[in-house]
């Protein structure tokens, strides 16, 4: 018995040390972002900070210095991520309704297409879009990248919501149909209101993915006033010399949005991800 208790304590200890180790990088960048760099070099950052020397100078520098201008990047990220969440959510909800409640000949083919698109790497689309966008005047515009993110979002959210819609109580939908309600009415008055948790989870994951994107932004947003925060934060890293305080502050600024969303809604995130791994 005593050995068992000892074993449990030991396991708890090991797992908790691992968890603490996992937080260490975050603690590190928070600490280094508010400490004067000279002090970090001498004393290191893994210590109780000296309250008197704490400074937010790095944050102000990262946000406002015209060289880095994370404030503009943050604003752009907000615009891009919000609209690139709203558009696919609407489009995907419509498509998911068709896939879960209507019968049509192309259904298996179109649904297969959705699955394929979900898995294809981003890299496979950018070259033709680059040519197309240059001709249409969409290159280096916020609108261009929003359209792209929206189209990708539609694919996975359609799949995600179709599964959700399928598990809604059939009897409600059948009853409405018997009463002569149109499909659009069933969609807007029954299916959507019942699916709010699913819509929330999809919106949060899509927003985070768009916010976190770097690859599309690098290809399609080139001028300073259009770049998003993930691009701007890399620019804080100089070629030879790294100002760690500045870089850490920039990192925290650019991760703040998804981290806050995660802190508030973490169940939606975990469930959304877990849904991938558990067969329903």
């Amino acid at each position: 018995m005593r050995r068992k208790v000892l074993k449990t304590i030991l396991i708890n200890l090991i797992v908790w040390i691992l968890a603490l180790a996992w937080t260490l990088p975050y603690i590190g960048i928070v600490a280094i972002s508010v400490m004067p760099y000279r002090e970090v070099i001498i004393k290191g950052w893994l210590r109780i900070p000296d309250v008197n020397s704490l400074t937010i100078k790095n944050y102000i520098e990262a946000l406002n210095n015209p060289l880095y201008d994370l404030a503009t990047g943050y604003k752009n990220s907000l615009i891009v991520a919000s609209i690139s969440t709203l558009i696919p959510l609407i489009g995907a909800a419509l498509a998911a309704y068709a896939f879960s409640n209507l019968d049509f000949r192309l259904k298996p083919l179109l649904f297969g297409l959705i699955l394929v698109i979900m898995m294809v790497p981003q890299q496979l689309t950018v070259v033709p879009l680059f040519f197309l966008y240059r001709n249409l005047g969409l290159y280096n515009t916020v609108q261009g990248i929003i359209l792209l993110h929206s189209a990708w979002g539609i694919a996975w959210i359609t799949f995600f919501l179709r599964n959700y819609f399928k598990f809604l109580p059939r009897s409600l939908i059948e009853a409405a149909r018997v009463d002569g309600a149109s499909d659009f009415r069933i969609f807007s008055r029954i299916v959507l209101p019942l699916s709010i948790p699913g819509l929330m989870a999809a919106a949060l994951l899509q927003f985070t993915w768009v916010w976190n994107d770097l690859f599309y932004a690098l290809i399609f947003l080139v001028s300073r006033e259009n770049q998003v925060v993930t691009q701007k934060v890399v620019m804080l890293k100089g070629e030879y010399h790294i100002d760690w305080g500045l870089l850490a502050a920039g990192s925290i600024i650019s991760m703040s949005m998804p981290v806050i969303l995660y802190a508030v809604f973490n169940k939606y995130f975990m469930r959304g991800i877990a849904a991938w791994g558990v067969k329903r």
Partner: protein
Amino acid sequence: MYLSKRIRPIFFLLFPFTLIIMFVIYPIVATVYYSFYDKNTGSLNFNNYMDVISSTNPLYMLVSRTLTRTPPWGALVHNLVWVLVHVPLTIFLGLILAFLLKYYVKGSTLVKTIIFLGMVVPPVVGGLIIRFMFDEVVGIFPAIFSFIGIEALSKTWTNYPQTALFALILGSLWIWLGFSVTVFSAALESIPKSHIDAARVFGASMRHIFLKVIVPQLKPAIMIVTVMTVLWDMKIFDIVYASTGGGPGGSTSVLALVMYSYFARALDYYKSATVAVILTLIITPFIILTIRWLKD
């Protein structure tokens, strides 16, 4: 609003599929076409593929012709090494943690929340943090090794070909472990507690329960985590771009980065398309596996 049976699906599908066809389907087809487009002659042939595969420039090389002890080995080899090291570690650690968290550890929700954070943080920032953790002046790892007196590992890992790739792979474990722990934890919920209790009553040891009861029942989840992790490793970009940019001397270059280098550095858009197609072809078996699994 009443719509005839024929038109109804069109009403629901027109808007989403217009976007998908314009911004996903068309570009995919066109990428394949461009990958064969020879810009010197204007004809379609395999020259881009030959050039891309045979390049020996460390920034663009896919597979090194010479066998060396340290990277650069070529982008494709780096991706494969990434998979070989990262996937087993992710599965092994994820399984054990999910198991211990469910049956033994107090405060397991908090531990899961911490580990999952890596999935939420932008991968770019993940890359910068990796660079930070392995930095000679401010990083933890070099400090530890300098303390134990291992000179070779007390430098900035990402600056040396011997250690850079390995530093990134270790860092990617920190970022991605949340995925496997979350999926395995969710899958563990579906194992009836009575199975575990029964095994305990018969005096089965912890290790025995884990290997003989848990692991077999988690096979589908292990499958999906393996496949998703392979796909993530093969497509990896942001982390490398932010931490090393493929350096030093191409020793951390990966396929997605080579694709980007052809695009943004060499401005050779057709070869860039070629690399994208090669990358897709390599991961196609895993894509098919996932689609099959998603379908039912």
